[in-house]
């Protein structure tokens, strides 16, 4: 179970697996946006294009039983943490076969079987909740680690601060993964944040803060694996800042002309699947391996889309259930 503690070698298996996750994220996001564009679905969606490698590599440093708390912009994290495509697609489409019976929707994915415990739409609120998961593991003497995934903008909210301080004082087995994609809605990092690197804030909590290139799969994986190992060993939390990029508007359909053209272009290049493919293929992963992965993933997505589309929406009466343990009278 503790493989990641002993070595964080970037093996060909790992490279393959990361490629699989990143490609799955990329194609899922693309397919989903296509369906929104052509009106097959109408859902508020926070695109993850540009952040595929970050999630794929970071989540690969976790065991399936490790916990994750993520955000509205969480499709990449959810897939990378192993939620089956069918269940996720069905939830995004508001169907009864979705992870949450269609009650939560894309902003509120939960799937305990693969450790995805909470997805929050309130900026920063998941960070203290991840502490609670880690605290429970600590009390129970379990060997689990909790990860809170959040954005650069979230590092300006009170919950971030309170949670990092508490985690440090209690040496909780938690990793704070800040996916710094340079924007908080339409606000640049500089316009809202008083540091140029979020990792600098770790010093204010007496914990290590590490920045890494979140678009480099090996660096992302190894940085995360080290933080996870540290947490698992009982040495406390780490603030990991992954430099990544949001290649779309904040929400699907939103204008993003405020992003300078050259900046966007450079990021598109750095975050591209082509570039990832190139890097992965340098890791004893053959062209035919990659082609096979792509074929499998494409098929998985088509199957999931078909599953979601043909599934039924929840029955209106379902509203009475899951408010409390006992259902509510009609």
């Amino acid at each position, binding site marked *: 179970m503790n493989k990641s503690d002993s070595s964080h070698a970037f093996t060909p298996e790992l490279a393959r697996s990361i490629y699989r996750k990143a490609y799955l994220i990329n194609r899922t996001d693309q397919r989903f946006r296509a369906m929104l564009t052509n009106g097959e679905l*109408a*859902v*508020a969606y926070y695109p993850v294009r540009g952040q595929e490698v970050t999630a794929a590599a970071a989540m690969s440093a976790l065991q399936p039983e490790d916990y994750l708390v993520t955000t509205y912009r969480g499709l990449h994290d959810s897939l990378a943490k192993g939620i089956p495509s069918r269940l996720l697609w069905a939830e995004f489409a*508001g*169907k*009864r076969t979705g992870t*949450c*019976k*269609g*009650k*939560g*929707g*894309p*902003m*509120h994915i939960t799937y305990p079987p693969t450790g995805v415990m909470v997805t*929050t*739409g*309130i*900026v*920063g*609120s998941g960070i203290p909740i991840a502490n609670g998961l880690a605290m429970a593991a600590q009390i129970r003497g379990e060997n689990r680690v909790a990860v809170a995934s959040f954005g650069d*903008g*979230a590092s*300006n*909210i*009170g*919950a971030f601060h309170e949670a990092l301080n508490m985690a440090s004082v209690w040496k909780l087995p938690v990793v704070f993964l800040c996916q710094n994609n340079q924007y*908080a*809605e*339409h*606000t640049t990092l500089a*316009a*809202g*944040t008083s540091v140029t690197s979020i990792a600098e804030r770790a010093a204010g909590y007496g914990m290590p803060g590490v920045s890494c290139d979140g678009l480099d799969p090996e660096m992302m994986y190894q940085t995360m694996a080290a933080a996870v190992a540290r947490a698992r060993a009982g040495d406390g939390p780490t603030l990991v800042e992954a430099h990544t990029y949001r290649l779309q508007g904040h929400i699907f359909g939103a*204008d993003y002309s*405020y992003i300078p053209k050259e900046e966007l272009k450079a990021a598109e290049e750095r975050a591209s699947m082509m570039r990832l493919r190139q890097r992965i293929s340098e890791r004893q992963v053959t062209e035919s391996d990659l082609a096979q992965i792509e074929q499998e993933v494409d098929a998985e997505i088509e199957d999931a889309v078909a599953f979601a589309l043909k599934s039924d*929406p*929840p*029955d*209106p*009466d*379902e*509203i*009475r259930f899951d*408010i409390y343990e006992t259902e*509510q009278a009609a």
Partner: protein
Amino acid sequence: MSGKTISFGQALNAALDDAMADDGNVMILGEDVADEQGGGVFKVSKGLSSKYGTSRVRSTPISEQAILGAAVGAAIIGMRPVAEIMLMNFITVAMDQLVNHAAKLRFMSGGQTNVPLVVRTTTGAGVGFGGQHSDMLEAWFAHVPGLKIATASNPADAYGLLRSAIDDEDPVILIENITHYGMTGPAPEAGYRVPLGKAAIAREGRDVTLVTYGRGVGDSLKAASLLADEGIAAEVIDLRTIAPWDEQAVFASVAKTKRAVIVHEAVRPFGAGAEISARIHEELFSDLLAPVQRVASYPSPVPFAKPLETAFLYSVDDIVRAAHATTDKAINS
């Protein structure tokens, strides 16, 4: 009215613009409110930072406590800050500043300071935003002495209420409904005011009073049409201000109709409708021909999937049925 047509969003924008032009103490702060950040997620402050500068129209970090705290501090020394909290659920991370500070500083200081602060926020179910972006929390604020809370049902009122809220010497929370921004209606004259605390009669009638506000007004007017087809003349009262609400207007109407239905989007238990119902019964008990009815949303979190979200929201039919209940009861008793 000016004879022109204006959207709800434009009316709010015009109110901010006119207020900033009239008074150098008026300023705006909130996430993405300046033009460099798009002029607000719902574009309500569009153009204003370009016109009045980013010192008076400030895009903030994602820090609701800091936003409202800064607004409170500026207000007690005579600025008139209009703080935008993007969605009403986000106020939950910063209730302290409104409830413990904005609402109480006039009182706790013995009248030495006051807090002429406006908080604009939006919310509402029906657009698929799910559990954490759709709640109607007006009842909380109405329960806090020192706060005022209002909501408009049409563009002219949106303009007039926002102007009055900015004028007001006390903290006012204005709720906008997320489904309303595109709604159009007659444009008010510049400088128009809708007094806080005064209800409007949106439609006259003598058989039953529908007391409502915000989105409920449009729905109640629809219900009133359906009722009219059956020969029931419903009077629709648009409270506009939820606290302090216009008891006299409501009592006068119900004294006439002897039947009342309260309509709001918030969930029923412990909602604002409970107070209105209790007060009507307290004051007009012996006049009433039937108990006051309440129409509200189903008491669950706001669900995501469409059929559930529809099951959550009250419907126009619910209003009609509730009106029937008051008239049936009257017949039976």
